[in-house]
């Protein structure tokens, strides 16, 4: 073995070359690696003290992580419209709820097996998205946002008013365990639901990233930035927006199915505008238009929403003076405030922060800064 004397500069240079060579490879396989790791979680009884009360493979923990994953996927589906195509929809919850309620209602009213029910529900929700989207997309910007909100409100009203005794009203509709396949029933099978949620996230990531990388993805970005250019190319911005809208709706519907299986039923909370608003918060906190930002934002938000409720009712907070303990016991207060602060100080969200740590070029932040909503195609001033 020969000993080489290497100068610091040479060492740094070698280091750089190694990184330049291996980093792209690592980057490509990192998501798959993470997926494998996540899939393996149920096999470990690792404890993560502050984050989770129980070991990772406990049903309670798996359930929580699964919910976070569902919201991660849902947030990414929302970002297909918001971050990637520049559409501000306030009614995304409708398709999530359509998938969930569709499943619950069909299970209760028919004798079809779960997979048929799920398929019908998702297809139905997709058709709904196509119909409503084609009307809503006649407008842009703020008007579009309000229209989607109005449509979603109908869903909310339908869910809580319980027409024809279908939706179960305020209390929602629970799933009858006997109608579900054995593998998905019971606490002991939480792990299967967990993998289902993981599969959902993988699906959404796959679909959205494929679109990102395809020519269609570039058209969507062009539509987002300035749809006159798209017009000039002979492409129809309307069609591409509708495409994004429908795909996002379909993905949300699948998420709805998984979610309803996870929590054992559907309830009007699925249709609430608060849910869509939360999606918006998730996406912005994560970093709109970025590859993994929205997913991370969804996971973190769902986790905080759950944990903060626990923290809020914990002894630590109870002992604080009333003025503080009251608001702090409401997770949405904390999240809403954090969100406002984030808009000011971290417009690129988590992804922007990560980029900032790595170097210049804030894609998420630039996206938000100075971006005006065009109500009629004319830039505001």
């Amino acid at each position: 073995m020969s000993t080489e004397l290497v100068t610091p500069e040479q060492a740094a240079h070698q280091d750089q070359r190694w990184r330049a060579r291996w980093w792209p490879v690592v980057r490509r396989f990192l998501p798959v690696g993470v997926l494998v790791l996540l899939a393996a979680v149920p096999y470990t009884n690792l404890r993560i003290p502050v984050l989770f009360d129980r070991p990772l493979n406990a049903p309670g923990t798996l359930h929580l992580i699964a919910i976070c994953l569902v919201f991660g996927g849902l947030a990414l589906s929302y970002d297909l419209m918001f971050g990637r195509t520049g559409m501000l929809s306030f009614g995304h919850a409708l398709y999530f709820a359509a998938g969930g309620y569709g499943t619950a209602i069909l299970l209760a009213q028919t004798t079809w097996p779960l997979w048929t029910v799920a398929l019908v529900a998702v297809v139905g929700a997709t058709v709904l998205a196509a119909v409503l989207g084609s009307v809503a997309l006649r407008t842009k910007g703020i008007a579009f946002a309000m229209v989607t909100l109005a449509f979603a409100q109908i869903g909310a009203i339908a869910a809580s008013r319980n027409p024809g005794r279908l939706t179960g009203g305020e209390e929602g509709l629970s799933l009858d365990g006997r109608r579900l396949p054995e593998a998905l029933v019971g606490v002991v099978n939480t792990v299967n639901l967990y993998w289902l949620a993981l599969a959902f996230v993988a699906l959404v990531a796959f679909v959205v990233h494929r679109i990102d990388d395809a020519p269609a993805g570039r058209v969507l970005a062009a539509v987002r930035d300035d749809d006159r250019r798209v017009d000039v190319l002979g492409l129809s911005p309307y069609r591409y927006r509708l495409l994004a809208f429908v795909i996002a709706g379909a993905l949300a519907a699948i998420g709805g199915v998984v979610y309803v299986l996870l929590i054992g039923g559907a309830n009007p909370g699925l249709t609430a505008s608060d849910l869509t608003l939360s999606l918006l918060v998730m996406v912005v906190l994560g970093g709109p238009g970025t590859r993994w930002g929205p997913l991370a934002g969804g996971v973190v938000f769902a986790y905080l929403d759950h944990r903060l409720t626990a923290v809020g009712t914990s002894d630590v907070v109870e002992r604080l003076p009333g003025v503080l303990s009251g608001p702090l016991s409401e997770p949405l207060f904390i999240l809403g405030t954090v969100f406002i602060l984030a808009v000011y100080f971290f417009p690129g969200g988590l992804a922007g922060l990560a980029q900032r740590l790595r170097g210049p070029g804030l894609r998420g932040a630039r996206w938000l800064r100075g971006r005006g909503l065009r109500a009629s195609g004319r830039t505001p001033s």
Partner: protein
Amino acid sequence: MSAAPPTSRALLSIVDLRVRIAGSQILQGVSFEAPATGVTVLLGRNGVGKSTTLKAILGLTPAGSQVTGEVLFDGVPLLREPTHQLVRRGLGYVPEDRGIFAGLTVAENLKLAERVPDPDYDTAYGLFPELKQRSRQRAGTLSGGQQQMLAIARVLLNPNRLLLVDEPTKGLAPRLVTEVADVVARVAETVPILLVEQNLGLVRRVGRDAVVLAAGTVAYRGPIGPLLDDEQLTRALLGVGSHSRVREKQPEAAPQAQGMSAAHGAGGTAQS
């Protein structure tokens, strides 16, 4: 390229102005000066960035656009100042689309523009008596020519140190082009103007110095006469010949605000 006559001090100085809008670099380093008297004409082909230059000076570029460089108005840097403030330094703006408020009446449009306790309605109504007659009419129902007059009258209410005028004859019938030309010439006697215009007849009549934009920068800077006299140069920079059917009827005629003579006057606007 000959410089402006040394006796005219530069009122407006543009130094290396760069404007980026929605991802495309419109202006890539524009530098020129406008003196404190006379009409400086900003010329160039369609879409080269003439209007953008005016907007950049005033801070009216779309949200999200990036403007760098320096704009000095009588030594005061303008770029960081909010529009409403820098306008109050004595800048009057007549935009390309006239920018009048369709839902307001003519009188209200004028009233809105008042900046001083004693606005000069005499000059405004003197040049455009028709506006006084149509005081209570909704500005949206005015004809194109009348709207243009309103847009010009509006800036004349206040004391201005520099006027930025963007294509005042665009889309107007020949007879109106003459009227507007008369007004511009008259106004230019007392206030310097930075004028964007495609109608070379008008340009030749009122313009003193020319700044020609091409490919995002200044391609020519100098007196109007030599530029327009050089047919080849004009065609190369502006895409049209300088003598294409543009004629005035009486160059030095006293401006008749109601000059309605049907005589064949200045030709149509030179559209490239």
